[in-house]
């Protein structure tokens, strides 16, 4: 299992990158009752049969690793949601993209810790080799959005240690402001 919710989100973003998405949107909404996030991408998508198999931990399409018999990313997501009083869902159309939804009870004892969002978001924004990624964070009605293209423009490239450090600082300042507002 993943240790934090940020790890789960990163895993879903990595799936979208491997599906050749050029546009990825992560939206995270937190209230006192529920924590929800969704990842929407325009990657290669899945047919109905593959969607059903994707939540089976003993299924992998074998395209990247020919002899592999497990695929744990989506099963981790579903297991965590269900253990924490919520649910997860996949909506996908082959050739068009995928939408992954996660919902859990904020106060549930089995909900993993949220994690270090500034560091995780910096990683997620730099997982894509090219294309646009938007991350929207909403906490009790207040929020902010990060755009990969805007941040890349401001920093002149995202993958140097200096840029990544500034990116983390920038996101941490948004988080701090959001928590104060909330």
């Amino acid at each position, binding site marked *: 299992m993943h240790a934090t919710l940020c790890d789960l989100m990163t895993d879903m973003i*990595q799936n979208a990158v491997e599906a050749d998405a050029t546009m990825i949107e992560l939206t995270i909404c937190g209230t006192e009752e529920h924590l929800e996030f969704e990842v929407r991408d325009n990657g290669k998508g899945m047919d109905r049969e593959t969607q059903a198999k994707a939540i089976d931990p003993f299924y992998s399409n074998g395209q990247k690793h*020919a002899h592999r018999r497990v695929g744990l990313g989506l099963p981790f997501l579903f297991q965590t949601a269900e253990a924490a009083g919520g649910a997860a869902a996949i909506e996908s159309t082959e050739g068009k993209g995928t939408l992954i939804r996660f919902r859990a009870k904020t106060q549930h004892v089995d909900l993993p810790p949220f994690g270090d969002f500034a560091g995780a978001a910096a990683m997620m924004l730099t997982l894509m080799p090219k294309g646009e990624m938007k991350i929207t964070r909403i906490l009790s009605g207040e929020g902010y959005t990060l755009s990969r293209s805007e941040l890349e423009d401001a920093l002149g490239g995202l993958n140097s240690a200096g840029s990544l450090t500034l990116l983390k600082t920038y996101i941490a*300042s948004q988080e*701090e402001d959001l928590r104060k507002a909330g």
Partner: protein
Amino acid sequence: MAKLTLNDLRKLRDETKRNMSQRSTEGKRAEVVIGMGTCGIAAGAKAVFDAFLDEMSKAGIEDVTIKQTGCMGLCFSEPTVEVICNDMPHVVYGNVDDKTARRIVREHLAGKALVSDHIFDKPSTDIIKNAGK
């Protein structure tokens, strides 16, 4: 910390660039690629990413890029990190934790010496281009 705007970020970038140009760098050039598949994430790749970033910032190493990739086929030795330096052998390190990541920065990227006890050769053959054909 006050909430930063994109303009603040541009100013910070320019300030950092000015500071960097005042240091006597030796023109190191390398790429660090961290495995960020389900296996890598579950094994602690985020902590490794943070450690690389922190140690590289402390060492003032600015001309090394940090990238991420999916599973490299070495799930048993996650977190894995590939280091590609122009003038050194191309290696994959396995079982990298916070401490090892900092050693890789100090010994490999700055000191140009391999961290031999964590070398796992190269990515698994099933993901190398044309493998098995």
